[in-house]
């Protein structure tokens, strides 16, 4: 019933989506590690990134490379804003107040975009060379697919090196292991938090461009589900583990694609439902995720 070609094609599509989930999950897991915060507003940053690219590239006619740089810069700026306005003021309170603030920021950003850009979705055209179609062997793909997979793997590799080799990277790992201990050995936690927000937000903004280019349209609400699914990816991979988050992203992408591709057509509408069903099953069977360590209850 399903040819090898069909299956390979679905695996490939899954990997493309998985790469984007992995990038989002990477940012969210850094923030979760350091603040123990499920950063709902993270999803909003992909909307911001996508619309920022749309404005720069389609409306202002800035060349692609320039537009991407602006998207990264704007994402980083959003990270600074989130950090300064929201979390600096709320940090230190109960965990739940950060969660609520993050939720508030998500709704704020989403509705600001809805208000400015209208609730209608926009057609999103990446530069023409991204749309070029290839038929290599058994799979068909566009340049954008290669771009997404290659650049996300590159970002993950660079980030892994960064975390292992640099002072700031080591400080981030220390803080996520134990904030108290990190403070005692003289790590400036405030700086680590700010830095994490900036990096995570910049990555999310770029992911927004990829998301728009892959789907071909952007809308004010595109960030919510992807943000929450990124957290599902984290849980699948194992909370607190950076490789786990990326791994979980890919697994989620492939599973989601398979749930659409291999179930009877009537079930396609269950796509999001299936993702959360997987989440609940994982929480029951293996709450520490595939690569994670057991997190102490608190």
């Amino acid at each position, binding site marked *: 019933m399903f040819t090898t070609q069909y299956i390979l094609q679905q695996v490939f599509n899954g990997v493309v989506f998985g790469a984007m989930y992995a990038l989002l999950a990477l940012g969210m897991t850094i923030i979760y590690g350091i603040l123990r915060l499920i950063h709902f507003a993270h999803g909003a940053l992909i909307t911001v990134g996508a619309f920022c690219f749309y404005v720069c590239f389609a409306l202002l006619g800035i060349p692609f490379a320039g537009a991407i740089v602006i998207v990264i810069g704007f994402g980083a700026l959003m990270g600074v804003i989130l950090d300064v306005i929201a979390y600096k003021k709320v940090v230190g309170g109960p965990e*739940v107040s950060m969660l*609520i603030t993050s939720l*508030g920021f998500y709704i704020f950003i989403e509705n600001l975009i809805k*208000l400015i850009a209208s609730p209608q979705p926009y057609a999103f055209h990446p530069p023409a060379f991204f749309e070029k179609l290839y038929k290599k062997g058994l799979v068909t793909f566009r340049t954008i697919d290669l771009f997404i997979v290659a650049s996300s793997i590159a970002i993950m590799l660079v980030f892994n090196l960064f975390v292992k080799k640099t002072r700031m990277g080591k400080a981030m790992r220390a803080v996520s292991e134990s904030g108290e201990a990190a403070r005692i050995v003289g790590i400036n936690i405030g700086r680590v938090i700010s830095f994490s927000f900036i990096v995570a937000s910049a990555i999310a903004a770029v992911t927004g461009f990829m998301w728009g280019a892959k789907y071909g349209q952007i809308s004010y609400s595109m960030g919510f589900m992807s943000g929450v699914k990124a957290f599902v990816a984290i849980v699948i991979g194992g909370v607190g583990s950076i490789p786990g988050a990326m791994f979980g992203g890919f697994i989620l992408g492939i599973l989601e694609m398979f749930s659409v591709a291999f179930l009877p057509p*009537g079930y396609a509408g269950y796509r999001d439902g299936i993702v*959360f069903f997987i989440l*609940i099953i994982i929480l029951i069977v293996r709450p520490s995720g595939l690569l994670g360590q057991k997190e102490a*209850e*608190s």
Partner: protein
Amino acid sequence: MASTTKNINNEDRPGIPRGVLALIGIAVLFALLWGSTKVFSRYIVFIVSLIGVYVVAAESLNLTNGYSGLFSLGHAGFMAVGAYTSALLTFPVEMREVFALSPLPNWLGGPQFHWPFFPALIAGGLFAMALAFIVGVPVLRLRGHYLSVASLGLMVLITSLAMNLRNVTRGSIGINSIPKYTNIYWAWGWAVVTVYVVWRVVNSSFGRAMMAIREDVSAAQVQGINPLKYRLLSFAIGAFFAGVAGGLYGHLSGAIRPYGFSFDLTFQIVIMVVLGGMGTIQGPIAGAATLIVLRYILKPVEEGLKVYGLVELIYATLLIVVMIYKPEGILGRRVLRK
């Protein structure tokens, strides 16, 4: 409404027993409600009833999120369960075929039967409660955070079922022409019941155990409190009343759609609780009243100026400002922070 809550919170008032005061408060409340149906337009009465429904929803979320230190984001999902269950049970027999709704199976009374309103509401609440148990048992063993995501996931799962089980729920069209049983007395009657139950729970050894867990899990465990049991019960009781609120809502507006129970609804209830003051009896009541009134004042502005999203934007701004400057909410009392 205000008088009831005031009485409830006067711990040591000499003279008249609190129970009597509360009854007088409730009597005054219902006299006022009766008066309002005589004085105001149907539109205003509808809004007042809606406030009652949201008091049920917000107060039940408050039990979970305010008193037990969990943070559920699935309230809209439980409301959807209650709304769909009760609507499907009460839908009149003679209209079922026209509206492409299948007749009730035999174990629910058979094709020639539709349920009266009250048992249908209870059934919706119990169904929501059962779901809360099923999801709660595995998830509540974990760190509190997981509940936020798992309950959100449950909500998405429920709405996607409501959207796709077309021969039961009619999919994205939703169900309309639900008999409008909910009136101002039903809504506020349940509001009073919910407030009473939450108040009784909170002011019992059960509630003290819950709050002990909220403040410090390890310390509570040392005292012999089993966190899972109390968290699970507070989550499940919250879900029951959320289901009832959903049923009331369906029978108030007469129409329900899967999209109506999305994250926006959860967010609205969360902000009612947070704004008014999590972990207080009066907070969610004030929050529900304020936000509903605000919504209906701003709605014409939003539509007139075509600035869709304005109401949510203002909600979100309020939420962020409150979290930064008065995290305990407008009517909340400052508690010792960890």
